[in-house]
Structure formats: C-alpha cells, structure tokens
C-alpha cells in the first residue's frame, strides 16, 4: 500500500512539474482555465501515467503490470484518472462517470485536503455546483447534477466538515465547461465544481 501511494505521489509530482514547465499557469478561477490545465497535464501524461491499482496490490505486481496498464486518458476513465486530481485544494473539479453520482476514488485525496482546510478555517464557505453533460432533458439533468453535488457534500461531511460551511446547487447541463459534443467533451462537463465563497485556500 505504501509503495503504491509513493508511486502515485511520484507520478503526481511528475504531473505537476511537467505542467509547471509547460507554460505560465493562469490564475483565473474559471472552469475553462482549470480544464485547460488538466488537459495540458493529460497531454503530458498520456503515456507516462501508471494505472492506479488496488491499494493492497504488492508493489512488484504493479511494476509488472505497469507497462500494460499504462492507460491514456479516455472518456470512460476520465472521471477517475489520477491526472485530473492532486491531493491538494488546487483541485477544484470532481468528475463523474456517465449517469453516475459516485465520487471517484482518484478525487479522495483532493477532497480530504479541502476538508482539512474547511475544518481549520471555520470562516471558509464552499458552494458545490453540480453539472451534467448535455444529453437528456434539462430539468432531469438538474436533478442528476444535484445528486453529484450532494455526493461530494456527503463525502466532505463524512470527513467532519460542518454543514454550515457547505451549500449545493445544480446547473444541470446549463453551464458546460466545454461546448463540443464528443464523449471527451461530455466527460469534462460531468462534474462538481468546488467554489469557495469565503476563506479560499
């Protein structure tokens, strides 16, 4: 378990380093900027990223499989792909599988970092904004987006965050991060955005 974590940490450091080398990172707090950064990270990483394995998996087994299981980012694994997350409050977007509202395990580290920040800063307030891709009817998608926002809310509550610090809203398909209609565009759009209303880290 330890070596697997280390391995992932190494990979994430690599991601961060490469991304930092890439270009001047923009500080704008827009979804588009975040997405773009993630995209850059993905591009850097699509051949170098080791697949996250079961935590109990022995390190040797993972090393053996590393070549085969090295996986490029696809629309199907996008929501749970480590390149979309780091274990800090810099990650502001949690992605979801098609028609799902399960918080992906790759996002746990980032959410725990947000939970720590919220718990140690009682003035901090977060809005969790749920979004869907554009397929399906609009009001039904508002309901699906709310499920995603509430799933993230529940995760943070289980980490001990006070309910007073969290609010949810759903925009359904009304505010896509990307305008296209490819499966990858849809993967980007299925998300919960973590928006600090006060006490941002």
């Amino acid at each position: 378990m330890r070596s697997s974590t280390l391995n992932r940490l190494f990979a994430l450091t690599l991601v961060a380093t490469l991304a930092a080398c890439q270009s001047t990172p923009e500080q704008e707090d827009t979804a588009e900027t975040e997405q773009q950064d993630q995209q850059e990270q993905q591009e850097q990483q699509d051949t170098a990223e080791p697949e996250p394995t079961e935590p109990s998996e022995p390190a040797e087994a993972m090393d053996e499989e590393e070549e085969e299981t090295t996986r490029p980012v696809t629309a199907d694994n996008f929501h749970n792909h480590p390149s979309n997350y780091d274990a800090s409050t810099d990650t502001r977007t949690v992605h979801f599988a098609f028609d799902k509202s399960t918080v992906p395990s790759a996002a746990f580290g980032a959410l725990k970092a947000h939970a720590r920040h919220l718990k140690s800063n009682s003035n901090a307030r977060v809005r969790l904004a749920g979004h869907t891709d554009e397929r399906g009817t609009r009001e039904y998608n508002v309901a699906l987006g709310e499920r995603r926002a509430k799933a993230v809310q529940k995760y943070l509550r289980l980490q001990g965050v006070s309910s007073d610090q969290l609010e949810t809203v759903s925009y359904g398909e009304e505010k896509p991060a990307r305008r296209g209609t490819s499966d990858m565009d849809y993967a980007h759009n299925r998300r919960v955005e973590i928006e600090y209303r006060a006490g941002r880290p």
Partner: protein
Amino acid sequence: MRVLVGILLLWLCNVLHASELEIQVTQGRDDALPIAVVPFGTPDSDPPEDIGAIVAADLHRSGQFDPLPPEDLLSRPHGQEDMIWRDFRVLGTDYVVAGRVETTGEGQYRVRYGLYDVPRQEKVLSQTYEPSGKGLRDVAHAISDRIYEHLTGVPGAFSTRILYVTKNIDLERPYRLQYADADGARVQTILRSREPIMSASWSPNGKRVAYVSFEDEGMPGIYVHDLATAERRRVSSYPGINGAPAWSPDGDRLAITLSRDGNPEIYLLELGSGELTRLTDHYGIDTEPRWMPDGESLLFTSNRAGGPQIYEINVNTGNTRRVTFEGSYNARADVTPDGRFMVFVHRIDGDFHVAVKDLERGTFDVVTSTELDESPSVAPNGSMIIYATQEGGEGILKAVSMDGQVKVELPSREGEVREPAWSPFL
C-alpha cells in the same frame, strides 16, 4: 416524400431583422394543397408589411399548403371583379387568395381579402380589417388562421407566439428569455442574465410567463413575469432545486419541482396565497410536471423504476400510474390540447428523439430523426410540435407535424436557441 428546400420559400428579407429567426420548410406533405396567394394590391399606399407574402409563408410553413411562386401567376387579381378563373385553372390550383391594402389616414390601413374557390368560381371567405401599420402582421396572421381553418377544419395557430431561451457567450449577459411571433418575426426580449434561464412556461391566457432564473448569486428561483407590464416576482427560492414550473389550466397554480425535503419532488404552488402542497413522495427523482388539459392530473418524469419514465398523478387522490414503457429513457412530456397525444423525449441507441404516444390507443411513434432533440412543445391547435435540437454544435429550433410528415427548421442567426414553448391561442 418531397423535399422543398428554400426555393419555394416566400420569405422577404425586408421584413426580417438580423436577430430574428428564419424559417425553412425542409420537408412538406406529398399531398400539400396548391394555393395561389396573389401579392396584395397597394393602389395608394406603401404599407410596411407585405400581407400576401406573410400569408403565403404562414400557409407554406404549416406543410399543408403548397403556395405557387408569385412569378408563376398568369394574372394578379385583387378581388372578384378582376378575377380570371381560367388563369388559375390552367395552373391546377383550386384556391386563390387575393386582396388589397388601402390607406385610410396617416399610418392607418384598410385590408380586404377573399379566398376564392376556382372550380366553383366563387368567393368562399372574405373580410375587411382596419389596422395601423404595426397591426398589419397581426392582420396577415389572422387571414392565414381563417384560411387554414376553412380549408383544413382545424383552427390556425399563426397568431401565436413562441417563447424560448437563447445563449450567446459573446455577450456580457449571455442568457436571454425571448418570445417571437410563430413565424419568428417581432422578437421581444423578456430578460437578460449572466446566469442561466430555463424552463419557461406560458400562463393559460398568454399574458404571463413563469421561468427558472439563476440570477440571484447563481442560485435558482422561480419567477412569474407579466409580459405587458414587465412586472415580475419571485415565487419560489427554497434551498435546493427550484425548477420546472408548469401553469395549471385555470391559471391559479404552478406545478413545480423542489428538493427542499431532500430530493426532487413535485409540489403545487397556489399563486394567490403562496400555499405549497407536496404531491409526490418518493426517494427517486420526480420532476418535469405538465398538466393534463382537464387540470385533474399531471404528467411527470420519475426514475423510481430505474431510468427516467413518464408517470401520471391525479392531483386530488395522488393515484399514480406509469405511462411509458418503451425503451429506457422517456422524459419531459407535453400534451395536445385535447389530451389525446403525449409528446416527449425518447432515447434510442444513445440518441434523443421526440416521440408521440396516443394515450387512447397506446400507439407510439418517433417523429424526429435528428439527435439530441429535446423540449418538445405542442401548438395550441395540436398540429405541430416545436422542439430544440443541435446542428453543427449550435442549439436550434425545429418543428414537426404530429405525424412526422412535415418538418420545418428555424435556424438562429446568433448564438443558441433552446427550450421553445408554444403559446396558447392569444
């Protein structure tokens, strides 16, 4: 099937403004009735609208008529006195619309028209109107309504309006709630916002609209807006979802979706008193309520059986029954004014189409072939369904007849158009 692309379209550029919707019939009916709409005579005036062109475009857009191009006319009568029947008989057209526009004063007009039956050589309809310049389009649509009703037996819906939402990301306030005449002319903007506007719905008398707006710090509220006075008030802003307002047929209540009790449920909101009654009680998603015309029951979307399906609930007894069983995704119902046909969004092989279900016989038909079709809304005469779809990544509006035979396109000139709602008779 005959495809009529643009060529027959009698659409005059001078009545069209840049922001308006342009309408094209992409598929007409095989048996569309030939009709000659003679350009109206304007002996002493230069009216700001071309009545004959508007009437011809209306009739063409219904898909039921095949108006003759004006250049094919052998003679151009303006009344029975100068009608040469033979000129229309040889063109194979059984009906002729002819009329004239005269000036009666500054900006005042007198419009006279007749509908003529060529085989019988007689006038079957006629009327005189005295509008101002601004009223000329209304007169044209009223003429189209009467002709349509006389020849098809169904009231025309040309004097109605379409409510819709546009999004143009180049604007500082990208979201706009607008309405226009059923032919796309005379666009009016009701609301501009930085935040999304959605689910707009007409009051039964067509004087007010209800909609969801996220204008208050990005949080949703349901608003009721008077079109004539622009007065509006927020009627719902509970924690969670405030969505999907649908006006009851008597105009007194809104059916809405709220998640204030934990998950999305349908509520009835009494507009006078503000009294709220919860209607559904299920841990799944219940949303998208739509009233049946008798006001006794509501159609709504629920995923209580897994995926979204349409259900009907009696508002007095709470009795609920499932209405759709075809496929794994059926949602966002609308219903014809006679309550017989339900239109809704249906998914097949990952694509979303508009489907029609005959609630009496139980038959089911998919009537659109584009992808990502949504928000179907039925004309008040039950003839056509307007819906939103995508073309080249842009949201556009299309209309289709209830039987799928007639297809009409309403491309937008700027940005996306979505969520059309056809007005009641006004």
